[in-house]
C-alpha cells in the first residue's frame, strides 16, 4: 500500500515536473550527459548558427581589418627601413665631405705652420748673424785693450827692474853704467 502511494506520488511529481533528459529524480546526471541523444539536435543547431555567425563576423569584418593592419604595418616598416637606408647613405656622404674638409684644413694648417716657421727662421738667422757680428766686434775691441794693458805692464816691469837694479848696484857701492844694467835686466826678463 505504502509503495503504491510512493509510486503514485513519484508519478504525480513526474507529471508536474517532468525530468530533464539524462537526469534522475534528484536532477543529477545519469551517466554521461554527452551521450544523451535528445540534446544532439539542439546542440548541433546552435553550433551551426554560432559557426555561421563567427564565420560572417571574421570573414566580413575582423580578418580583412587585421590583415589590412598587418600589411600596412609591414609597408610602413619597409618604408621606414628604406628611409633609414637613404639617411644612412646621406650621413656617409656627409661624413666623407667632413673628412675631406678636415684633411684640407690640416694641409692648409701645415702649410701655414711651415711658412711661419720659415719666416721665423729667417728672422732668427738675421738676428743671429747680427749678434755674432756684434760679439766679434766687442771681442776684437777687448783684445786690443788687453794687449795694450799687457804691453803697458811689461814696460812698467822693465822700468821698475832697471831702476831697482841700478839702486841695488849703487847701494853696494858699485858703479854701473846704464847700458850694462839694461842688458842684464832684459836678459833676465826674457829668461
Amino acid at each position, binding site marked *: 500500500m505504502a509503495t503504491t502511494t510512493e509510486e503514485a506520488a513519484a508519478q504525480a511529481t513526474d507529471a508536474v515536473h517532468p525530468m530533464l533528459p*539524462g537526469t534522475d529524480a534528484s536532477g543529477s546526471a545519469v551517466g554521461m*550527459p554527452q551521450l544523451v541523444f535528445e540534446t544532439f*539536435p539542439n546542440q*548541433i543547431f*546552435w553550433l551551426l548558427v*554560432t559557426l555561421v555567425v*563567427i564565420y560572417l*563576423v571574421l*570573414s566580413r569584418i575582423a580578418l580583412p581589418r587585421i590583415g589590412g*593592419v598587418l600589411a600596412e604595418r609591414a609597408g610602413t616598416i619597409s618604408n621606414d627601413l628604406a628611409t633609414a637606408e637613404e639617411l644612412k647613405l646621406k650621413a656617409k656622404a656627409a661624413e666623407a665631405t667632413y673628412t675631406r674638409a678636415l684633411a684640407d684644413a690640416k694641409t692648409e694648417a701645415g702649410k701655414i705652420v711651415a711658412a711661419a716657421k720659415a719666416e721665423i727662421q729667417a728672422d732668427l738667422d738675421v738676428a743671429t748673424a747680427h749678434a755674432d757680428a756684434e760679439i766679434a766686434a766687442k771681442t776684437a775691441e777687448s783684445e786690443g785693450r788687453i794687449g795694450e794693458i799687457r804691453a803697458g805692464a811689461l814696460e812698467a816691469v822693465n822700468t821698475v827692474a832697471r831702476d831697482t837694479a841700478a839702486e841695488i848696484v849703487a847701494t853696494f857701492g858699485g858703479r854701473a853704467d846704464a847700458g850694462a844694467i839694461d842688458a842684464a835686466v832684459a836678459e833676465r826678463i826674457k829668461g
Partner: protein
Amino acid sequence: MATEEAAGGLAFHPMDQFLVRPLFGGTEINWYTPTNVTLWMGLTVLAIVLVLVVGSRGRAIVPSRMQSIAELTFGMVHKMLEDITGKEGLKYFPYVMTLFCFIVFANFIGLIPTSFSTTSHIAVTAVLAMLVFLGVTILGFVKNGAHFLGLFWVSSAPLPLRPVLAVIEVISYFVRPVSHSIRLAGNVMAGHAVIKVFAGFAAIAAIAPVSILAITAMYGLEVLVALIQAYVFTILTCVYLKDALHPGH
C-alpha cells in the same frame, strides 16, 4: 551518481555541469529550444567579437594590447596554414580561423567557474570534425578528381605492400573524424570532471587544503589544455587540408 552520495555527506556530481538545460525552464529540448548551449555559444561569439572586432577597431600601426591579441591569433593561424598547406591553402583561412576561434574561445569561456563547456560535448566536436572531414574529402575530389585516391596508394612503397598499405590508409582516413572529435571533447570533459571530483572532496575539512591545491593545479593544466587542444584541432585541420590540396606522398 546518487549511489555515491552515501558516505560522509560527500556528493559527487562531476557530470552535472555538462547537462543541457533549457534556459527558460521546462524540460523539453527541441532543436530550436534556447538552452545553456545557446547562452554559452552566444557568449563565445561575443568574446570573439570583443577581441577580434572591437579589439582591432583602432587599426593602429602600434597596436594596443587587445589588438595585439587579435593580431597574434591571426598571425599564428595564418602562418600555420601557410606553412602546412602552402600559398594555395590560404583561400580557406577564414574557415580554419572560424574553427580555431570557436574552439579556443569556447574552451577558455568554459573555464569560468559554473560555466558550461560547449566543447566538452561530443555532439559539438563531432560536427566540427565532420565539417572538416566532409569539406576536405569533397575538396579533394573536386580539386584532384580520381587522382585524390592516390592518397591511399603509397607509390613510394614496394608494389606487393601497396594494397595492404591502401587498406590501412583507408581505415586511418575514416578514423580521422573520430579521433579528431573525441580528442577535443575528451580532454575538455575529463579536465572539468576531475576538477569537480576534487571539489567534492573539499567538503571534508581535513582534505580541503589538498583538494584546493589540486583544483588549482588542475585548473592551470586545463588552461594549457584549452589552448593546446584548439591548436591541435586546427593544425590537424591544416594537415587534412594539405592532403586534399596535394594528395600523393
